[in-house]
Structure formats: C-alpha cells, structure tokens
C-alpha cells in the first residue's frame, strides 16, 4: 500500500535531522496558523499564490532562493564545524550523515538557491527593462515557479522522511546505482532535480520568447540593457543544456527503477558516459548562473559610476562568445579520467579561451568606472568586491584548466576553493547586489545603507578567511569531502576556515537585520519618484512598485539608454514630455494552474521515490486534469479601464514634475 514507506523512514534515533525537521515543520505550521488566524489567506491566494504577474513571481522566486540559501548555509556551518573538530576523531557527524550534508549542500546551493535567485531577478527585471507588460507565457511562468518550489520541498522532506543522497551534488555512478545506494536518497535527488528542471526549462522557453519577440517599440537588440542580454544568453544555455541533464538523469533513473544498464559496471554499462554527459550540462550550468550575475554588475557599475557601460557592443559579443564556448569545455571536469593527452590538451585550451571573454568584461567594468563619479552604495560595494575577488578566482580556474596541474589538484580542497571563489564572490555577491539594487523598485522603499555595508564588509572578510585556507590545505594534499582526518598541518587551516564561517554568520545576521530595519523604517526610506538611484534603463521610468501593467503607455524607444536621454531632456526643459493618450489595458487573469500542477507534481515525486504506484497514478491524473481545465477556460484576460490607468499615471507624473519644479533630487 505505501511502497517502501514505513515508520523506519523517520530517523527517530538521529536527533539532529529530527530536531531540525521538527523546528521547520513547527515554523511552517506556525506561519500557516498566523495566516489563517489573521485572515490573510484569501489575500495570499488571490494576489500571490495564483498570481501570473512576472513581478510577483520574481519576488516569490527570490524569497524561495533566500530561504534555500539559508538552509544551504546551515549545511555549510555543519560541515565546517565537523572538519574543525574531526582531527584524530570522529567529530559529531557520522560518515553517512556527513555525506548527506555535503550532497544536500551542493544540490541546494546550485539548484535551489542560486538558480531561483537568478531566475527571480530575471523575472522581475527583464520585462521592465524591455518596456513591456509581461512575459510571453504568464501562466507557464507560474507553473515554472511552483515546479521549482516542488523540487525544493522534496529535498527538504528528505530531511525527516527517509534520507538524502550521499553521492555528492552530481550523483556519479556506480556509487549512485541501486547496488551501492539502495536507499531512497538518490531517488529524492533524481525526482527533485527532474521536476524543478522542467520548471527551469519552461522558464528558458518563456524568456527566450519574451526577449526575442516582445520588446517595447523601437527597442532593437542593440538598445537592450545589458542585464536583458545576459538573461537571453543564460536562457539560451538553459534551453540547450537542461535537456541534457534531464536525459542523463532519466537514464540513471531507468537504471535504478527498471534494471537498465546505462551506467552500471556490468552488462555493458559505462559509468564514464555519465560523467561526460552530466558535465556537458554542468559546465554550461555555471555560466547560466554567472552570465546574469555579470549583467547585474554591468547595470550597477554603470548606474553608480554615472556613465554608460563602456564597450557595450564588446560586452554583448563577449556574452554570446561565452554562451557558445561554454559548450566546448566540459571535459575539464574529468581530465583525470584518462581521455589522453590530445583530448585533454584540446579542452584545456578551450577552457583557457573562455577566460578571455570574461577578461574583456573585467576591463569593460574598470573602464566604466574610470573617470566616473562613483557613488559607494551597497550594490556598488558588492560589485567592486566582486571585481577584486573574481580576478583571482578566474585565475585559479585557468590554473586548473592546465591538465598536468589538474592531475595534482583535481578533487582536492583547492578545487573546492576555486568554485566557491567564483560562485560565492561571483554569483552570490551579484545576487545580493541585485536584490539591493532592485528592492526599491519591488517594494517602494530602499534598504538601509548602514546594515547593507556591514553585510558587505563582514561577507568579504568572511569569504577570504573561509576560502583562502582551502587553497592551502588543497596544496597540502587534502582531498574534498573528508569526514575526518589525521594530518596535523591541515588542522589549523581548517580551524581558521571555521572562524571565517563565524564571520559569515555575522554577515548573514546583518543581512537579516537590514531587511527588518528597512521594513520598520520604510517611511523614511520611501522611494517616491520610482527612480531612487538616478537609473539609466526603462525599469526606472515607472513607479515603485510598478502597477500590474508596468507602463501606462509603452515607451517608444529611440535610442540606447533611452530613459537617460529622456530624463536629461526633462531636466533641461524643466518639464515632462506631453501627457500621452491613455487606453484600456488588457492583462492576463490570475490562475491557480501553476500551484495545482505543482501540488500534483509533489505527489507524483513523493510516490515515485517511495514506489507508491497507485498514488503516482492519482497524481498523474490530477496533473492532466489541471491542464485540461486550464485549456478549457474561456476568459483568459481582463481589462483595466483607461480612466484608472490615467489616474495612476498622473500621480506618477506629478511626483516627477515635483522634482523638476523644486530641483530636489535625493539620489543616493
């Protein structure tokens, strides 16, 4: 009846996951009780859960990403604590538990923290930057989000019901095959990643379509803001790479569920094919993350230097170059598997070449700052911190791309230091900068600068103290993923690294404090004009927060940095452009399709993990029925009358006119 599921799946004998799980469940129940008691449920359901508004979905993506970032960070703290004490000792985490922690950490950080944050910012910003009202397929967008949430939920369920994979964030066979991992851990991984992967793929389709087909009149490709360009490149990579991931994991699933032999040791299977295919996705994946990060830095640096982005065209070229070349380097993740000198040399060279594209970008940012009047706001600090850290992070990558060096450093702590160097100081810094930068647009008030700067300084110091020692122990011969060790030289370095984590905990505390303080003091931090930073792109034309339809009248773009030009003209002539003629606006209706689909997807996933076949069939029927109901609905849109649009836009114009009259500009 319940497949493999029984009471023994709940780890009553292991206090750590049990207590952690209980706390999370209690928190969730508490939140739910609060929502119900206060009568917020109808609001939440109508305005958020069923919303197909790209801005709301973006905000929910970011919220999901931040929560998962916290969960992944807790895993990280546990690992650092373990390695700080497990010298000549077993530490407090038994091996089978330690293995789950590092596997969950990697999976969560890449797929359920960084990806939702990147996609969330893309959702919020891209339609605004393109000067349009929504994405190409609004309901599909909601489906994407909720499927991603399903994946995250499944990973977290594994904490209390059953176990998670012990195979690392990429489940290498033969270890991940049924023979060596008979439990449900790998199955949790597979279904969580597959379901959220479908969500990601749909996002890719949605945004490629949006950016290629739906832009404000006059917004040619070469007038698109840099962040939108990088979003396009990233989504093209999603379209090309995620099917590879899906197919590879599907093959592993067939091995585990139906006795196939794609990657087994026996019956003609070949485990090396798995490494090959998973990295054909895995390397593009790191660029899916880092390209939008580069886009964020471009916007931030240009805005706070008060200058257009230096070498816009070369930046676009470098982005597209990276987009293609990132599909020619994947073997550098398994130089040591033995493809031989010729193949290794070719991929070593292609890997080094990709750093050229990145180098071009670094110079562009430096020259954008050069001669500019720089405002040292929090987003700008994150960006400048990134410029310093990323150069060394990229260089260690180039070092690893030299096959003979990689034979020594592969799978060592040096590698771990490298990818944290580029992902933490490259992607995560960008995401925090982006959240800081676009927060006023999303919520109508700026974030507190003091707490933001504190977060930045603790983060960058904590980052160096945590990860630099890892390079050292890597060179001293320490391999990754060690549950305990008895080499005296490593011990001190690992303890320093743990001190670094303490500093990062302070940083995380400052970040939370910043959000709280800013919320409490939102009146004095209010963004009245909709353009708090003296911005240059179209998202700053509209109010903060923008109305559902984003723009009362679609902007007619006639220039690069069109908004900047418009603003300068308004200042010169001390008046706004003529009031446009307002028309009624048609907007897509909200729909519970995404949420209901994800509900059934969760059931399907859970049933497949525990081999509860009847439940899986129920889930499939439910999901299909949802789709049919959606396909049959006959009123997909509603109208916002012209009067209402006019009224709202006149208020916005009045706020702007006020600035022009008084000359008061409170730009940070």
């Amino acid at each position: 009846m319940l497949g493999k599921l029984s009471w023994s799946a709940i780890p009553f004998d292991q206090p750590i996951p049990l207590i952690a799980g209980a706390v999370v469940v209690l928190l969730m129940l508490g939140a739910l009780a609060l929502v119900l008691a206060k009568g917020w449920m109808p609001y939440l359901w109508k305005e958020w859960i069923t919303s197909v508004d790209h801005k709301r979905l973006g905000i929910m993506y970011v919220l999901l990403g931040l929560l998962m970032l916290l969960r992944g960070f807790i895993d990280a703290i546990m690992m650092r604590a373990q390695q700080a004490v497990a010298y000549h000792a077993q530490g407090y985490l038994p091996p089978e538990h330690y293995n789950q922690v590092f596997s969950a950490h990697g999976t969560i950080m890449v797929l359920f923290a960084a990806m939702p944050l990147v996609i969330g910012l893309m959702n919020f910003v891209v339609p605004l930057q393109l000067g349009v009202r929504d994405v190409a397929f609004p309901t599909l967008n909601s489906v994407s989000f909720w499927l991603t949430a399903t994946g995250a939920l499944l990973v977290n369920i594994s904490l209390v019901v059953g176990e998670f994979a012990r195979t690392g964030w990429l489940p290498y066979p033969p270890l991940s095959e049924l023979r060596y991992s008979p439990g449900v851990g790998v199955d949790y991984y597979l279904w969580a990643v597959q379901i959220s992967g479908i969500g990601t793929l749909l996002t890719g389709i949605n945004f490629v379509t949006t950016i290629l087909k739906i832009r404000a009149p006059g917004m040619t490709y070469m007038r698109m803001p840099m962040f939108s360009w990088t979003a396009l490149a990233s989504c093209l990579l999603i379209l090309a790479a995620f099917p590879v991931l899906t197919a590879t994991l599907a093959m592993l699933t067939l091995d585990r569920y139906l006795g196939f032999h794609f990657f087994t040791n026996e019956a003609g299977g070949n485990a090396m094919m798995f490494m090959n295919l998973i990295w054909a996705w895995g390397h593009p994946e790191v660029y899916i993350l880092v390209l939008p990060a580069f886009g964020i830095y471009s916007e931030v640096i240009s805005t706070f230097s008060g200058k257009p982005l230096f070498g816009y065209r070369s930046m676009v070229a470098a982005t597209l170059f990276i987009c293609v070349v990132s599909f020619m380097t994947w073997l550098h993740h398994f130089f040591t598997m033995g493809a031989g000198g010729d193949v290794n040399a070719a991929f070593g060279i292609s890997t080094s070449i990709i750093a050229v594209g990145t180098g071009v970008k670094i110079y562009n940012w430096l020259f954008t700052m050069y001669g500019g009047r720089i405002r040292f706001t929090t987003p700008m600090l994150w960006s400048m911190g990134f410029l310093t850290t990323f150069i060394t992070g990229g260089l260690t990558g180039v070092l690893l791309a030299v096959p003979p060096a990689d034979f020594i450093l592969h799978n060592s702590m040096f590698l771990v230091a490298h990818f944290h160097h580029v992902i933490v100081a490259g992607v995560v810094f960008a995401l925090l900068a982006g959240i800081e930068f676009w927060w006023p647009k999303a919520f109508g008030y700026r974030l507190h600068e003091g707490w933001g700067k504190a977060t930045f300084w603790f983060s960058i110091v904590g980052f160096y103290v945590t990860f630099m020692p890892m390079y050292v122990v890597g060179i001293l011969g320490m391999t990754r993923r060690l549950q305990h060790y008895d080499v005296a030289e490593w011990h001190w370095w690992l303890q320093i690294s743990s001190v670094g984590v303490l500093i990062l905990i302070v940083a995380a505390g400052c970040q939370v404090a910043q959000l709280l303080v800013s919320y409490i003091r939102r009146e004095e931090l209010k963004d009245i004009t909709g353009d708090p930073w003296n911005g240059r792109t179209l998202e700053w034309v509209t109010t903060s927060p923008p109305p559902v339809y984003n723009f009362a009248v679609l902007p007619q773009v006639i220039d690069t940095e069109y908004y900047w030009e418009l603003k300068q003209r308004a200042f010169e002539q001390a008046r706004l452009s003529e009031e446009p003629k307002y028309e009624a606006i048609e907007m897509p209706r909200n729909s519970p399709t995404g949420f209901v689909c994800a509900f059934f997807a969760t059931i399907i996933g859970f049933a497949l993990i525990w081999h509860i076949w009847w439940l899986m069939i129920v889930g499939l029927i439910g999901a299909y029925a949802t789709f049919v109901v959606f396909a049959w609905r006959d009123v997909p849109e509603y109208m916002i009358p012209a009067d209402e649009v006019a009224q709202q836009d006149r208020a916005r114009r009045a706020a702007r006119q006020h600035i022009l009259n008084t000359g008061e500009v409170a730009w940070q």
Partner: protein
Amino acid sequence: MTAHAHGDDLEHEEDDRGGASDEHMAHLGTYALGLVLATGLTIASFWVAKTHLIYDPGVPMALATLAVAQMGIHLVFFLHLTTAPDNTNNILALAFGLLIVGLVIFGSVWIMDHLNHNMMPMQQIMQMQR
C-alpha cells in the same frame, strides 16, 4: 517588432493572419502532405532495416539519412520553418540548436572513444585486483 502585453497576443496575431477559411484549407493541405511524407519515410526505414537489397553494413547509414530527412519534413511541414524574413529567429534558433547538438555529440564520441581506447582490457584489471 511590436509590443504585446503577453504571448496570447502572438497567437491571436497568427490567427488573424490566417483567418480566412481557404487559408485554413491551405494549411490543412501542407499538413496532409507532411503527414504523407513523414509516414512514407517511416515505412521506408522499416523496410530498409529488413530488406537485403542494401549492402548490410550500409543499413545504419541509410537509417541515419532517413532520420535526418524525417526531421527536415517535420521542421518544414509541421513547424513551418521557412526562409522568409520573419523567420530569422527560428532559423537562428535552429542553427544554434544544431551547433550545440553537434558539439555535444561530436565531443562525446571523441571523448568516449579515447577513454575506451585508454582503458585497460577487463582481464588485466581483474588480474591486478587479485
């Protein structure tokens, strides 16, 4: 390039263009032709696999050729890929797709070939483990 609130408009646009019923019939005609061609190619591949008219080692090649032709038919008749100027995006997307698929397949074959070549024969590994 025009602006739309959202994608449903894209579909409306298509609908409006092909609104007249004789155009619908023309559409139907291309679909029917596509179906005939696609079915023909499918039957042909079953026939190729069974027949002895073709030099045996050449059969995989023949099947691959038929598969590529099948994809072409699908692209032209069902996905309406043309060389018209409003189709640039689709052509570019196809080119990008082909490039990436080509890179991944070519790279994988090359890599796996070298890996297998460099692998010790199984018996030797077994002996080392003794």
